[in-house]
């Protein structure tokens, strides 16, 4: 079944190459468009990096290559580069008037397949198709060395294997059989038809990436290597090269995050868009739902292991919004350090971590607000959540210790305040609410809370099954609950949460009762309406937030 459009384009290659040009300078955009059209390429222009990402996500398969300027107002070009590399795996060419070696090197490090100096010449643009072709060739080579049938699983992501236990070989083979036919059609044409090689690209779906991250954490970030990861991941058809290139991107991403959290905002990084002025007003919203029959793998971690999420915002939002928080797994600390607050009145910070293992019944989903994909409600009906106890210490640290034997992670909540905390926060376990399976902890906090941080002390989190949402109740006098809004971090990325206020009248006081409900949630991102895409919406939203 040949798509006539595809084959026509294939024959004309490189003419018809679909290019996305991103440049904030309107003059350059016009010139580049004209130049690329003269090369007989199909050009789409945009002047914002965020816009470019939207376009790419929306029409994932409609572009062959991206050309972007390094200096963009809304996002660092290197960041865009990373995104495109991680999410879409398209070749990206960087452009800049600045030809300094360090910059060029940075571009290459971040995965740019070329770095053009402005003013860009026609002849340079005429050759960009090489990068597209080279990439396809690379992918074909990978395939000829792997189990052909299994590639189809990769090609189409792991959507089919969502709720299945991936270690069940029989299921894999049944998927395999279905895909057989598709692959064989593809097989003969690959080498001659670069434009059809799209199908061969390894898609780093949410699940696959999650496995990757699991493997990395299990090995230990310092000792990691593509071969080890590959072995651990145990994904048939995946090759060392795939893993190696993904690892490289991942490393870049992490190093960038670490730099940011060390406070090295060099101006390239856009300010946290969710910063607000309501620093004192907030309530925590969160909910965690327990997955159904989930078997969460455990990695024994040391007590030093921490996964720490960073929240850099206080944000007034409606009560009923919650956002699941992805939990990452780490054997060693994969810490996004809490960025130092720069001023006294700066944004409170909240770290969220989680990791639970529990089986749970259905997770019921409420409708998402389509306009704000982050808002997401989960009301688990599960009943088997073990009680967890909260411990507090004089440093206003409250830790949730999941006392169940199967759970080894500890969540500690630290309340810090810009002003003096007169009353230490105590979080006591509240009896489980059988109706909704929530367990709550009530700190009698009557002071203004600057920040809440939760740390998983035993660093055990199952990455691909966890979504955690901490729910915090407002004062009993209020009938409404407040929730921690948390954006999800994929894999072991730090987690961002937003603290929101449920009360504008009590702007200066923390709710009397701070109930922290911890529930487990699995595959929330799968359960969500947007499926795997949802993750990526978050992915960049919180990345923006850094």
């Amino acid at each position, binding site marked *: 079944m040949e798509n006539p459009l595809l084959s026509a384009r294939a024959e004309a290659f490189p003419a018809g190459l679909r290019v996305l040009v991103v440049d*904030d*300078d*309107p*003059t*350059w955009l*016009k*010139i580049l468009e*004209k*130049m690329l059209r*003269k090369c007989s390429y199909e050009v789409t222009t945009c002047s914002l990096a965020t816009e470019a990402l939207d376009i790419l996500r929306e029409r994932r398969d409609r572009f062959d290559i991206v050309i972007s*300027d390094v*200096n963009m107002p809304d996002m660092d070009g290197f960041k865009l580069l990373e995104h495109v590399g991680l999410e879409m795996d398209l070749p990206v060419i960087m452009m800049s*008037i*600045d030809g300094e070696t360090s910059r060029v090197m940075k571009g290459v490090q971040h995965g740019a397949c070329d770095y053009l100096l*402005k*003013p860009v*010449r*026609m002849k340079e643009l005429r050759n960009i198709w090489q990068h597209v072709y080279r990439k396809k060739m690379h992918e074909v080579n990978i395939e000829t060395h792997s189990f052909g049938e299994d590639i189809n699983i990769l090609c189409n992501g792991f959507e089919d294997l969502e709720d299945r236990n991936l270690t069940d070989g029989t299921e894999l083979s049944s998927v395999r059989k279905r895909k057989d036919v598709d692959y064989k059609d593809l097989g003969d044409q690959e080498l001659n038809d670069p434009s059809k090689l799209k199908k061969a690209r390894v898609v780093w779906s949410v699940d696959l990436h999650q496995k990757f991250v699991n493997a990395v954490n299990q090995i230990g970030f310092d000792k990691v290597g593509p071969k080890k990861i590959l072995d651990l991941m145990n994904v048939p058809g995946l090759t060392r090269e795939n893993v190696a290139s993904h690892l490289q991107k991942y490393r870049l991403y992490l190093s960038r995050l670490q730099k940011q959290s060390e406070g090295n905002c060099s*101006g390239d990084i856009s300010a946290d868009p969710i910063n607000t002025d309501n620093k004192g007003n907030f309530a925590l919203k969160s909910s965690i739902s327990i997955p159904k029959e989930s078997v969460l793998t455990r990695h024994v971690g040391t007590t030093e292991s921490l996964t720490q999420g960073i929240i850099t915002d206080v944000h007034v939002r409606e009560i009923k919004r919650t956002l699941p928080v992805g939990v990452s797994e780490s054997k060693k600390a994969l810490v996004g350090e809490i960025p130092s607050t720069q001023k006294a009145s700066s944004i409170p910070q909240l770290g969220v971590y989680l990791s639970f293992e529990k089986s749970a019944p259905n997770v019921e989903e409420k409708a998402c607000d389509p306009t704000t994909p982050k808002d997401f409600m989960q009301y688990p009906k599960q009943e088997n959540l073990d009680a967890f106890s909260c411990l507090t210490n004089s440093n206003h640290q409250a830790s949730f210790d999941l006392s169940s034997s199967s759970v080894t992670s500890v969540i500690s909540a630290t309340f810090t305040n810009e002003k003096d905390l007169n009353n230490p926060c105590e979080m006591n376990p509240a009896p489980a609410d059988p109706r909704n399976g929530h367990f709550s902890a009530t700190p009698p906090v009557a002071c203004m809370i600057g920040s809440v941080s939760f740390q998983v002390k035993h660093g055990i989190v199952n990455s691909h099954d966890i979504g955690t949402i901490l729910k915090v109740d407002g004062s009993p006098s209020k009938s409404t609950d407040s929730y921690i809004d948390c954006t999800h971090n994929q894999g072991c990325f730090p987690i961002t949460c937003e603290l929101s206020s449920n009360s504008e009248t009590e702007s200066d006081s923390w709710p009397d009762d701070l109930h922290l409900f911890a529930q487990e949630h699995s595959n929330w991102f799968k359960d969500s309406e947007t499926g795997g895409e949802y993750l990526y919406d978050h992915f960049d939203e919180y990345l923006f937030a850094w």
Partner: protein
Amino acid sequence: MECSSLHRQLAIIKKNLFDQGFLDEQFYQLEELQDDASPNFVEEVVTLFFRDSSRLLTNIEQALREKHPQDFHRLDVLMYQLKDSASSIGAAKVKNECTVFRELCDKENLEGCLRSFQKVKKEHAILRQKLENYFQLQRQVGPVEKATRSGN
């Protein structure tokens, strides 16, 4: 005769623009892009440049007027944008002065920056005037000729 005299005038003006360093190679590139599909491409691009760069100059001016401490990083970023833009049409003198400004910015030399900025503005205005004259003459001459390099 009138026609060829105008042609000659045009050619001389253009040659001067290049010889005196107002324009560089990039301008030729723009002319080569001009074709039947976009017969006024060069003029359109130049117009776009002056519109956008005026905005940038205003921003820089505002930034320079801000109270101390002067945010040199921001100035650098703004001037970078102007330089980037200038390179698109081959505005060589403007581009060079932008570079000088940025170097002074690096050294946090406010006095120097202020002086340099005045030069940038001046070069910008001069080029604008010259190119306006050039396009006006070009329209008078008639259908656009294909780009010829000076010295051909």
